[in-house]
């Protein structure tokens, strides 16, 4: 018997943790691109803003979109609710109101991470220390997942943590594809396309920690269509859009009234099935990803109206 309010807090805590981890991965990978990038071409940091979100907010408060200001915005900005610092803080605040349903170690691990980020976020901005900082954030969020996996009963509370994590993850995968892949596809049409394309596609995979699993599953060279196919459709890789939607769908059966949410999952799956990867150019990919994101948001809305909102207004009969 999980309170609606607690379910919602758990769901958002998991989303924020996943967001912090995903942001850390994407920023880390983008920084690593520097190594492979020709010195003649300046690395553009702006795609990071597009992936993580908050471009308008950033522009309102900054004159220039250079590495330092973008990194500060994404890692350490207290006024950006999507920064790593604030994501961890939001996750902690949400868990603080739900401590009684969590294994104690989970709270401690999140609290540890919060204390670390609150005092070390400057290291995530400076290029010299950035990698270590980001590795730590990724590692600690994974530690939280590990503790949950090993110590938390598979009850309703755990279910909402899982749902939050998966919705956020599916959303993030589509964002990375939207920004990085669409830009790459657009460039391929250009005469004398960049010789660094394959490096960049690898980087797309790496920013989702997907490169190694791509090789094992796809057994082919990294290029646009194969990358898209893997990140959208692979049924075994835990960051692909298909995998996230399928697990959400399967998890729902352990909650009350799953049939109020499952249609949204089926709809998202249908949307995914209609994507024809080989025919996509940059613009078409944009449109496709937009539709997928709408479908994922519908899953979120269905969860909210079934478990968070409807119950909170008391319109559901006594059972």
């Amino acid at each position, binding site marked *: *018997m*999980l*309170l*609606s*309010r*607690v*379910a919602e807090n758990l769901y958002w805590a998991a989303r924020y943790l996943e967001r912090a981890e995903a942001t850390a991965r994407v920023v880390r990978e983008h920084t690593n691109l520097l190594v492979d990038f020709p010195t003649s071409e300046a690395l553009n940091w702006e795609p990071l803003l597009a992936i993580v979100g908050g471009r308008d907010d950033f522009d309102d408060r900054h004159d220039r979109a250079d590495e330092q200001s973008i990194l500060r915005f994404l890692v350490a900005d207290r006024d950006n609710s999507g920064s790593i610092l604030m994501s961890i803080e939001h996750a902690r*605040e949400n868990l*603080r*109101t739900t*401590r*009684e*349903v969590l294994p*104690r170690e989970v*709270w*401690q691990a999140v*609290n*540890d991470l919060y*204390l670390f980020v609150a005092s070390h976020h400057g290291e995530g901005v400076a290029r010299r220390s950035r990698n270590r900082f980001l590795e730590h954030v990724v590692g600690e969020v994974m530690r939280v997942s590990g503790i949950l996996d090993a110590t938390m009963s598979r009850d*309703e509370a755990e279910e*909402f943590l899982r749902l939050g994590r998966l919705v956020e993850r599916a959303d993030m995968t589509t964002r990375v594809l939207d920004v990085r892949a669409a830009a790459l596809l657009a460039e391929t049409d250009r005469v004398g396309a960049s010789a660094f394309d394959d490096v960049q596609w690898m980087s797309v995979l790496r920013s989702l920690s997907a490169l190694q699993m791509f090789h094992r599953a796809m057994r082919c060279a990294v290029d646009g269509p194969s990358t898209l196919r893997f990140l959208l459709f692979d049924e075994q890789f835990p960051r692909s859009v298909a995998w996230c939607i399928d697990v959400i769908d399967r998890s729902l059966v352990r*909650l*009350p*009234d799953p049939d109020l949410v499952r249609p949204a999952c089926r709809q998202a799956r249908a949307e995914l099935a209609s994507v024809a990867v080989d025919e996509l150019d940059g613009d078409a990919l944009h449109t496709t990803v937009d539709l997928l994101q709408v479908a994922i948001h519908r899953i979120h809305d269905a969860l909210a109206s079934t*478990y968070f909102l409807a*119950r*909170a207004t*008391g319109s*559901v*009969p*006594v*059972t």
Partner: protein
Amino acid sequence: MAEIEAPVGAWDELIDGDGQPRPSAAKLVEHLRRITVGELKARQDAADLDILAMGITFTVYSDGRGIDRAWPFDVIPRIISAREWASVEVGLIQRLVALNRFIDDVYNDQRVVADGVFPAELLTDSANFRPECRGVHPPLGVWAHICGSDLVRDADGTMYVLEDNLRVPSGVSYLLENRAISKRAFADLFEAQSILPVDGYTDELFRLLRSLAPDDVDDPTVVVLTPGIYNSAYFEHSFLAQRMGVPLVEGRDLVVDADDRVHMRTVAGLKPVHVIYRRIDDLFLDPEAFRPDSTLGVPGLLRAWKAGTVGIANAPGAGVADDKVVYAWVPDLIRYYLGEEPLLPNVPTYRCLYDEERRYVLDHLGELVVKPANESGGHGLLIGNRSTAEERARCAQAIERDPRNWVAQPILDLSTAPTLCDGAIEPRHLDLRPFVLTGRTSYVTKGGLTRVALRRGSLVVNSSQGGGSKDTWVVED
């Protein structure tokens, strides 16, 4: 070798007047004298890290903003002998039983008033008397199920009851957490002697709460009701819910239906609730019955409680006995209801309501502690011998304006215990808050929460005003 600074004037809990350890503290003092201050400091630092990592916090307010602060803890425990504690326990239970008889009486027959033992005007004036509760008979006649009493020890070693907190007493979670931390700091000493365990509290509390369910409910649903994350004791509310494995609810999670039944809003719809351990003050509990502007409470809760569909601890209105004015009558109430002499003494208390006692207070402000009758957290307190003439003048005005709201007591030399302060072990004043549960049976924590004034000479132990805490060991000699 660590040197322990000798106490001056006050009774010290660990060391007697000749600098010798008290018998139950012998092992600890010997241990402290064997290690260096540096070693002790290292254990203190480890304890502070544990507190930070475990997220043991309390919330303080400044500029209208709540700030989450790490719980202040001194690594050197305070020790009480098991023999002494056994007699304190009996005295605490006697007190709480009498207070419950009093509460039940004032909401029903008011025999205590008719018999001329308690003045009628005090009841009608009382800020904590709830006319809405007249005529209610909670199960077993118990209204105040959970009580946190503050005990202090004077220079001659006598333990006094300073006040009884019957509304929403807090601190028990810190008592339990302090033990967890001090076990790590002094593992070897826990092996070497018999220190009575404190962990049973949450089981006892859960058993008590379940016993408050309506008779026809086999497997009652118990919840802890919190005002929310911005309350200074939120950590504790969450802690207790966690330890009992019950939902921690806010007012907005609960709803009372037209049949006066309480439900909580869950992911599977509305589910019945049978017992509420509420940590919200009476006046905010139910906007339908009390303050209509309260957003923390649950409309209709009082109605459900009166209908007997839900048990509430402590019962609405129980705070009538949590009043520094009623306090002055407790010895009389014990004699009146139980026909027994009080086992634990009250601190002599002057009631400004009475002309004669008020005159004495106004003439002796410099020698008294003056307290508002209905404030907690040490606010509005005047400690006569540490006050300025201006503070005393302001206090005198406040007393003249509203005499009923003020009581005064002689300044006690609160006892001390050795405390680690800036690299030296120095005496600091402290008090003790044990927690008492009563229902079908009664239970007292082994020891309590020791609060310590961390500034030299200070008597203010409240954590919101720079106080710290210690683990309390009840040791079998």
